[in-house]
């Protein structure tokens, strides 16, 4: 029983290291830049001396490792710092938009995961069949098209032409997106289209692989009906391997959705993280950018760990106790 615990501990340690590495890269990327908040916030008619004074006041003139250590120390105490532009705590700036974005991503994943698995399994069991060719064609197209174009085309069809759904996804004043659920349909739909197209292809590849396993082929040659081959031979023997192969896929899905949503939100004026991120980038507000980046990294690395553990628990060797 010791081995699994040790293995899980190792994975968690590796994940923590990954998180530290990501946070360093992000901090360096967001801080070590030519243009910074001091010059951005003072405007154009300033002297270099004024900019230097502001930089010194904000501590932007100290070496990068020192600033990283201080920032990380504060983060560990739950303090993400203060926005350099609005002077509000970063947590307050991003809390509400982050929640809106998370709602959108959760809805999109709740639809995408079953849909991608269903389509992937149906097409993977009959590669080259009519359904497979149709789904492959559609998903090849959708994967290639930028998500904001898909979103724009959905607006054309469902709001402008059919008038069924709102083109702009603004929640009521002082309310949350959940108070007007219809505003979530088109943004979530755009994400689902894009993510399903992408994920179903990977599920399909896994299913095709599993279906060609020697034991399945042998059963087929022995005349076992296809349905029995799938349920009795493929699933019990290859199911765990498939879960292991697919678990990281769904972790990446979370990353792709959180990334894709920032662009899709802009199409619909949805009050999510995109507004915060774009404002931060325009104003060179490194504190906000680092805060959002770190939170996203935590979410992504977190889902990678969950995926990794799921794959680990699906390993049949664990049940028999053999290493």
């Amino acid at each position, binding site marked *: 029983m010791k081995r699994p615990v040790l293995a899980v501990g190792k994975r968690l340690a590796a994940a923590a290291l*990954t998180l530290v590495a990501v946070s360093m890269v992000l901090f360096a*990327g967001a801080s*070590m830049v030519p243009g910074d908040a001091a010059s951005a916030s003072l405007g154009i008619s300033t002297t270099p001396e004024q900019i230097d004074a502001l930089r010194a006041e904000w501590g932007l003139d100290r070496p990068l490792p020192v600033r990283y250590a201080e920032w990380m120390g504060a983060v560990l105490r739950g303090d993400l710092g203060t926005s350099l532009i609005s002077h509000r705590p970063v947590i307050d700036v991003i809390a509400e938009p982050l929640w809106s974005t998370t709602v959108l991503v959760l809805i999109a994943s709740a639809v995408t995961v079953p849909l991608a698995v269903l389509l992937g399994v149906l097409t993977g069991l009959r590669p080259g069949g009519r359904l497979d060719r149709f789904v492959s064609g559609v998903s*090849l197209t959708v994967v*290639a098209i*930028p998500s*904001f*174009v898909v979103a724009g085309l959905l607006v054309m069809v469902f709001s402008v032409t059919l008038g069924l759904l709102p083109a702009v996804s603004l929640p009521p004043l002082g309310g949350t997106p959940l108070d007007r659920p219809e505003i979530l349909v088109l943004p979530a739909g755009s994400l689902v289209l894009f993510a399903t197209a992408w994920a179903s292809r990977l599920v399909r590849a896994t299913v095709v692989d599993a279906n060609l396993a020697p034991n399945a082929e042998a059963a087929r040659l022995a005349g076992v009906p296809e349905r029995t081959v799938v349920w009795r031979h493929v699933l019990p023997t290859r199911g765990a391997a498939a879960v292991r192969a697919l678990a990281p896929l769904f972790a990446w899905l979370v*990353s792709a959705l959180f990334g894709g949503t920032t662009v899709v939100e802009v199409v619909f004026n949805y009050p999510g993280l995109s507004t915060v991120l*774009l404002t931060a980038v325009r104003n060179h507000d490194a504190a906000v950018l680092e805060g959002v980046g770190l939170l996203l990294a935590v979410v992504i690395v977190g889902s990678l760990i969950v995926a990794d553990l799921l794959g680990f628990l699906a390993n049949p060797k664990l049940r028999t106790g053999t290493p």
Partner: protein
Amino acid sequence: MKLRTLVALPGAAVVALAVAGHWIAAGLGDPGRIVGRPYTGPGAGLPLGTDGAGRDVWLRLLAGGRPLVLVPVLAVALTAVIGTATGMLAGYRGGIVDALVSRVDGLLLAVPPVLVLLVILHGWGYNPVTLVAVVVVTGAPFVSRVARAATLQAMRQGYVEQAVGLGEGTVSVLLREILPNIVRPILADAGTRLAIAVSLTAAAGFLGFGPDEPNWGAMISQNVEGVGLTPWAVLAPAVCLAVLAVTANLGLDRLAARLDR
């Protein structure tokens, strides 16, 4: 065969439009000039109407594809070179090199491309070099993985061992024995990379970065408010962008399939 031509035709037309439209537009007038009231529908002299600022949508469509062709193609070429080099090295050398490359690849794969785009634009502004950098940073890890796996497979084929046994040096083995045998999977992947590069480049324009020059990505976000008045200012660039991205993907796929034969 007929069907394939039918599918390829709009793709070729849009690529031609993106590459050469710039010059045609230059002969017709200035795409930045205001020619009418905002969001006028199609009419005489304005085949696609005007956009939110009252500019000629047709002229802007002609001129706006250029930034979405040159940068992505260059960036994907560089991505392929860097990804192939690191992947081959990781697969061939194994050990600590492999561990390092695989870790860095895994790390970069976990970061959403749009976040990379925003951080790099935040620091260094919008220009061809930063756009290329975004595509390389987000794309090279994918290529590296493909190249590494293909290298490992190629090394089991005996001819690599033979070459090493005959005294070929590392560089020679990598370039003359392994590279020709892993080009196919890398090229098959390059279509996806190119489509994503087009998307990312367009997304930068769409998110409002870059100069106020015609850009299909930027046209969509600038005019989305007016789709109820006239859809063309959004529909035309959206359809062109979609066809361009799909053509990039399928075109390179076909090229890879042709090499296969």
